[in-house]
């Protein structure tokens, strides 16, 4: 759960001047002689008057490397500055190896390896112990690798390694921790559309790699539901083996003693013997076609604008040229995008380019701009202008010099932290890069010419190669996005969990189901049911909360062709909500707004579950019917039939009183009050209205908890309900 999102915002309330990206790290250069200390008591007049001594020597720490008998590679680096020990392991696994229908296995495996403890160390006890020690042992998961980390005071190093070795080899995967992690993941799914920038970044990735790509896989309720304990254990068994691990340890220890500790704890881990997982190549055919894509978000006053395309790898020949090109285009204060769109035009706070080549697969090149809705197209035109400019003529000598110097002169920063040094070496080892790769990069940067940069821009900045994604409130744009060409809307509605799949109905079950439905229809009004086009009702709705009940007066009109109009009187005032069959909208006072994306989806699903509609349509094509046995409601046996609207993918169970044939309840998987789960509606009494019997009092539960009680006060069958009543008011 990203409480980090919240605490990052809250604990900071810090307003930083720039969100500019930093340039890519530079490689090493032969050390310069140590300068004499200048005693400058004079003050320079202009910056150019400052005399800089030569760059000081960079001390490259010597890292020890060895391999354990079980195949684990280990790097050690002593650092006695502070009495702490850190360790970090790269593990050959990753979410790219998940089957798509079970997206989430990898990260849940990693999380439960820690939270669930080992077969001899229960998770909660481990939590207590580590927190008391101020020690961390954690597992993480990315697309192309898994991680394990240790952070502790030096006196706890031995204990930490014993724990790490135990968790790696004997994770318990207890069901309660698996369920907890699934629930946490479910919560994050529900929250993934709350933040505009989060939506935009995620969808950019899904476009550039393609929704079906293992590099853009996204957890859904259905994929999480499908994951079993066996799946997690199998994933662990396949990938978590010492041959797949590169471990780095740094901090306040003696290398010989640490080597012995690692051998004693992790060296005892037997080989797994599974083949090394292959690199999964990027399939460009999965990617979205270049063009303009749009996500409507009605509650923002700023647009998120991005363009993105696949790029190359760090070990491709163009890497350093591309790095320089991207830096000049949009890397920071000196860049073209910053200077034009932010400084000169004042249109944006964020205006950056980002070049992220992959290590073993193509990475991406992207540009991001955030501007108020009213200057969306203006900013897009300016951005396109800058890209065209980069590809049309060479950068200036000054720009090239600055880009190269900013990379090359900051070399010392690459060696400023022990952790950084060792993690870089581990990364090179993991991806099969030579250990002197950083030096190669540096040499490459030094050679970059203006002609090189132009060639790079011409190759990589062709506008027709990019996917453009705009997220914002279209109604406020200065010009319609369609001026750029055909616009493809992106649907970000969160797919609701599907119910448990029924097995294929036998002809007998189908016939019995239809017979039961005929009985229900007759009990509720027979032919009068078929004559219904719309039903209007006035209801009092009581919503149960732990603090007591909240009452809402609701007037609802629902048509059998899927339209809805609700008028709600809540403690906050009167609200209208409508659904015209396609779009959902809301109105409060004079304020009319589009409903959030998943509301239309929910309304459609609710329409497909409407009792009268189902009783009219169950025998028509597009519907499947199946009698069920052994169903109960409130402990009493009931007859039951499942009706599936195939197009809407909605299955509803009708629960029928065996004696009277009256509908006594309805159950489905969907959402209640906007929350997903299993809903059961129970009907306590019925009224006659226009020749048909409909529930006048009902109680609804979500996942077994009572949430809503509805009492219908007034009915009208076939009220005057023209289509315009359901359309969004202007």
């Amino acid at each position, binding site marked *: 759960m990203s*409480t980090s999102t919240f605490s990052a915002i809250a604990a900071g309330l810090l307003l930083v*001047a720039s969100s500019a990206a930093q340039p890519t790290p530079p490689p090493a250069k032969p050390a310069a002689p140590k300068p004499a200390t200048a005693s400058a008591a004079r003050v320079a007049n202009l910056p150019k008057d400052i005399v800089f001594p030569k760059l000081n020597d960079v001390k490259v720490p010597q890292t020890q490397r060895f391999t354990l008998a079980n195949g684990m590679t280990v790097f050690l680096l002593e650092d006695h500055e502070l009495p702490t020990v850190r360790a970090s392991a790269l593990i050959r696994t990753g979410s790219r190896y998940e089957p798509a229908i079970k997206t989430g296995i990898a990260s849940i495996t990693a999380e439960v390896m820690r939270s669930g403890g080992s077969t001899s160390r229960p998770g909660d006890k481990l*939590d207590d112990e580590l927190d008391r020690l101020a020690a961390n042992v954690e597992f993480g998961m990315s697309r192309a690798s898994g991680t394990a980390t240790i952070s502790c005071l030096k006196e706890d190093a031995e204990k930490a390694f014993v724990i790490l070795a135990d968790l790696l080899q004997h994770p318990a995967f207890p069901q309660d921790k698996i369920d907890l992690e699934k629930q946490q993941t479910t*919560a994050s799914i529900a929250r993934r559309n709350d*933040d505009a920038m989060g939506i935009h970044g995620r969808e950019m990735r899904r476009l550039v790699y393609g929704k079906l790509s293992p590099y853009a896989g996204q957890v859904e309720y259905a994929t999480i539901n499908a994951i079993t304990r066996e799946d997690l254990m199998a994933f662990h068994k396949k990938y978590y083996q010492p041959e797949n691990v590169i471990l780095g340890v740094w901090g306040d220890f003696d290398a010989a003693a640490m080597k012995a500790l690692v051998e004693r704890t992790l060296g005892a881990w037997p080989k797994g013997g599974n083949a090394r997982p292959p690199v999964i190549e990027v399939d460009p055919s999965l990617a979205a076609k270049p063009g303009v894509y749009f996500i409507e978000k009605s509650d923002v006053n*700023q647009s998120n604008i991005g363009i993105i395309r696949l790029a190359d790898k760090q070990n491709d020949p163009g890497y350093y040229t591309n790095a320089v090109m991207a830096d000049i285009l949009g890397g920071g204060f000196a860049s073209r995008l910053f200077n034009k769109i932010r400084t000169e035009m004042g249109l944006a706070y964020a205006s950056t380019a980002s070049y992220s080549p992959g290590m073993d697969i193509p990475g991406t090149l992207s540009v991001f701009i955030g501007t108020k809705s009213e200057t969306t197209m203006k900013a897009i035109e300016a951005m396109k202008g800058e890209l065209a400019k980069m590809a049309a003529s060479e950068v200036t000598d000054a720009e090239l010099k600055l880009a190269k110097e900013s990379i090359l*002169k900051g070399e010392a920063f690459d060696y400023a932290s022990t952790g950084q040094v060792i993690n870089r070496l581990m990364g090179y080892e993991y991806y099969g890069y030579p250990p002197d790769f950083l030096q190669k990069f540096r040499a490459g940067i030094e050679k970059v010419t203006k002609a090189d940069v132009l060639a790079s821009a011409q190759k990589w900045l062709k506008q027709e190669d990019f996917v453009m994604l705009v997220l914002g409130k279209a109604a406020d744009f200065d010009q319609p996005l369609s001026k750029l060409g055909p616009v493809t809307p992106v649907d970000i509605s969160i797919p609701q969990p599907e119910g448990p799949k029924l097995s294929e109905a036998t002809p007998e079950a189908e016939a019995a189901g239809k017979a039961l439905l005929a009985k229900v229809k007759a009990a509720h009004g027979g032919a009068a049911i078929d004559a219904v086009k719309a039903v209007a009702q006035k209801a009092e709705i009581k919503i149960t*909360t732990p603090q007591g009940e909240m009452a809402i007066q609701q007037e609802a009109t629902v048509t059998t062709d899927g339209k809805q109009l609700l008028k709600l009187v809540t403690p906050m005032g009167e609200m209208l909500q409508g659904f015209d069959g396609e779009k959902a909208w809301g109105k409060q006072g004079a304020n009319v707004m589009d409903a959030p994306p998943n509301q239309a989806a929910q309304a459609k699903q609710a329409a497909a579950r409407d009792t009268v509609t189902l009783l009219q349509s169950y025998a028509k094509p597009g519907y499947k019917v199946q009698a069920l046995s052994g169903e109960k409601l409130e402990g009493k046996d009931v007859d039951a039939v499942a009706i599936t609207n195939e197009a809407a993918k909605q299955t509803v169970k009708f629960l029928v009183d065996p004696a009277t044939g009256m509908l006594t309840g309805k159950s489905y998987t969907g959402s209640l009050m906007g929350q997903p789960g299993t809903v059961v509606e129970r009907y306590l009494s019925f009224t006659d209205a226009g020749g048909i019997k409909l529930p006048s009092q009902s109680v609804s539960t979500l996942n077994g908890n009572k949430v809503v009680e509805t009492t219908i006060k007034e009915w009208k069958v076939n009220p005057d309900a023209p289509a315009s009543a359901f359309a969004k008011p202007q």
Partner: protein
Amino acid sequence: MKPTSRLSLLACALTLTLPLSAQDSFAEFEKKVTEFTLDNGMKFLVVERHNAPVISFYTYADVGSVQEVKGITGMAHMFEHMAFKGTKKVGTKNWLEEKNSLDRVDRAFMALRAERDKGDKADKAKLEALQKDFDAAQEGAGQFVVPNELGKLIDGAGGRGLNASTASDRTDYFYSLPSNAAELWFYLESERFLNPVLREFYKEAGVVREERRMRTDSNPIGKMIEEFLTTAYKAHPYGEPGIGHMSDLMNFTRPEAEAFFEKYYAASNLTCVLAGDIDPKRARALAEAYFGRLPKRPKPEPLRITEPKQEVERRITLQVQSQPWVLIGYHKPAATHPDGPVYDAIGSLLSDGRSSRLYRRLVTEKKIVAGAGGFPDFPGEKYPGLFFFYGAANAGKTNTEVEKAMFEEIDRLRNELVTKEELEGVKRRARSSIINSLSSNTSIGIQLSKFQVLTGDWRNLFKYLNEIEKVTPEDVQRVARATFTETNRTVGYIEPAKPAASK
């Protein structure tokens, strides 16, 4: 003060009796620190760390958004943006000409603003003409600008991490340079506070308005925090948004920003930490030469506004396109209060790690939240802030349920003594945190400057351990009982804008 962002007071004249290895760490560390103060009151801390030829520079200006008044909200942050625009020598092609052109821009803006002030009665044609004049004046001034020269000079020297941040009660300016380029920092940073030129002011106000849209207007949580703080505070400026109200961001002027600078950026209000591959003697010589030029100016008047005691619970609900959140805030004394370490201990007990109270109860056992936490000194440390809680409901759970569960944990602190074991964990985590805060030049800059300014002595970073060691279960209960009361709290809900019962 917990070294991430908390503060605790140290009683004066403490003798140094620290837990043993922390004492070693402190003794070792103290040897590396040189401090001096210039005649104009500007304070320097130089920390030697020669593991790599780099230096991190951190300037802490004792000024923040609390210094603002209505009409100029957002000014502290605006000035921070301006501090990147250069000086009379950096960022300009011709200062004398530019100076006149900037005055012209101000006049054109104020003329435009005066017509806009007429509201419905404004003459449309006149507005258009004045806008044209204003655009032309800006373009004219723009001819003299060398854009972003300050940033480019730092980039060109191999600098990293150039940025600044504005909080309620402080403004920080920071970046790192290879150590051979140290003099560049002395030059630029002293010039920046000696001769700042607030060029491209009105353009940059447009950038800041975009920042507001990004962080607040178009962000459910940002929006909520703004509403929440306004509700929790009725007098003290902690209740005002640091980013500023949109109308102020549309209307304030360059002369107002200059006045703000004159008033609050006295040399004695600046503290710098230089950490890395630096020779303290050379640093002192350069500091005297460059920063000695800053005039001695009186410290600004202190903020005298105190928030009156809250006597009634305050509640707000924000309906937005977002999943539910609960926020709860209780007024507490400033971080420098003697009970500061107790509040930090409470925060640690509630939120640090999977065994923490909120995680164990609300996430693991009751499965009611996706995440929850509680921590002191929100939005700031210098003045009485809030002890702040947040909770994000799991799917199918309501804010009301989350609030109830959070109150149960808060009440436990009032009604039951915490265990000695839990406090041992708190103390050990505090020690680990302080040790880790010394692991990078940047982190050293952040911690030392904060303790120096807020407590008067950077050494209190270490003495904090003494204070935390002394916290007892009874202290926790006493402070919990005094603070976590119904009339002292503000509660905010983010509710999804959604329909009532579906059919």
